């Protein structure tokens, strides 16, 4: 579809510039399901919004200056939304990104074909009120989930006395950081674009994360991505810490078991791949910081003698990792289907 992964669609951006009330969800869905994925199909869809459109081919492309933006302009590589036209410069939107270009260079690239749209004074998305309310509730669901999770986190953090010791505060913070880094890595491994991940990845080496994730070493025996293993580790560690702080000594033991992996990862990046994955290095750093907290907090020393409780903890790590591994292809396919359905 004419959309990108940040939610911008051609129709949503165009309707916003035309000032026509609409919801991103409904208009995006209508765009994705319209039978003709062409300017003709779009013009028919716009009619449903009370917007008449017509297409023109400009033999003299300088007549672009006579057109009132916004309008759609075709190029050999795709359609753009022209936001503003001046004798020196053209401002346009492509996949939701604003770009500016010299007027002369733009008319060189543009093939002369435009779609002009004329909204009526009452133009609006069909059933706009209903869709807007639905959109609000859908967005609200996310915020309610975040608020409830934050409340639960704070409750457990305080009720279980985790705030009382520097080591448990440190372990909590580092677990959360590790969870965030591995979440970004999991997103990258299923090719979900996240600007935050790109910013972090660019710190040590631009493109390093993507390069490492493409290697066979990014998978544990070809079965599990290390990003999934890491995500499972930090999520189970954090939840266990919050719900069962008595398990701290065995969390410390599990952390100790993970440390050799960090050495292998750094060695691999430095000497085999010759590329640095910033997110991966952040995860290794988190594991070592956790070790220092567990060790100097006195938790590692309490892990002996071993208790049978270490078994359900181990099982929890494995179960979450396997569940995530089972879900990952569904996320990847769902994202691929969203992209291909929209073509």
């Amino acid at each position, binding site marked *: 579809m004419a959309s990108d992964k940040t939610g911008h669609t051609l129709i949503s951006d165009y309707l916003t510039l035309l000032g026509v009330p609409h919801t991103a969800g409904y208009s995006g869905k209508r765009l994705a399901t319209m039978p003709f994925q062409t300017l003709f199909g779009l013009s028919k869809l716009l009619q449903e919004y009370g917007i008449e459109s017509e297409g023109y081919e400009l033999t003299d492309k300088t007549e672009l200056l006579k057109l009132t933006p916004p309008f759609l302009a075709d*190029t050999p*590589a*795709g359609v753009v939304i022209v936001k503003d036209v001046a004798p020196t410069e053209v401002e346009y939107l492509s996949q939701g990104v604003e770009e500016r270009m010299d007027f002369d260079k733009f008319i060189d690239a543009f093939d002369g074909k435009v779609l002009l749209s004329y909204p009526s004074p009452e133009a609006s998305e069909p059933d706009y009120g209903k869709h807007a309310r639905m959109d609000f509730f859908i967005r609200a669901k996310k915020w309610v989930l975040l608020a409830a999770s934050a409340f639960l986190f704070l409750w457990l953090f305080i009720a279980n006395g985790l705030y009382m010791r520097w080591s448990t505060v440190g372990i909590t913070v580092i677990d959360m950081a590790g969870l965030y880094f591995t979440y970004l890595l999991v997103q990258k491994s299923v090719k979900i674009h996240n600007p935050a991940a790109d910013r972090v990845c660019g710190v040590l080496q631009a493109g390093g994360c993507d390069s490492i994730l493409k290697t066979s070493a990014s998978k544990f025996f070809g079965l599990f991505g290390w990003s999934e293993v890491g995500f499972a580790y930090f999520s189970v560690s954090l939840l266990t810490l919050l719900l069962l702080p008595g398990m701290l000594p065995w969390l410390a033991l599990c952390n100790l078991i993970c440390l050799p992996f960090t050495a292998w990862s750094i060695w691999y990046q430095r000497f085999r791949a010759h590329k640095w994955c910033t997110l991966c290095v952040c995860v290794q750093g988190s594991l070592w910081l956790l070790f220092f907290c567990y060790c100097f907090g006195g938790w590692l020393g309490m892990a002996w003698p071993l208790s049978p409780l270490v078994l359900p903890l181990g099982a929890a790590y494995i179960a979450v990792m396997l569940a995530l591994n089972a879900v990952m292809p569904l996320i990847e396919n769902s994202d691929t289907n969203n992209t291909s359905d929209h073509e």
Partner: protein
Amino acid sequence: MNEIKMITPPELKSARKLKPLELNGIRIGRKHSVLTPQQLEEIARSGKDSIQ
């Protein structure tokens, strides 16, 4: 939401109205990355080179 833009049809001297079939030939469903000015310039250049 902004006010609805009132756009009047322009008076064009050199333009030809596109027929529905011609509009139907302009796809918007092509998956493509952001069309930067650099990419558009390259397209324009390669278009001129192929004509020559």
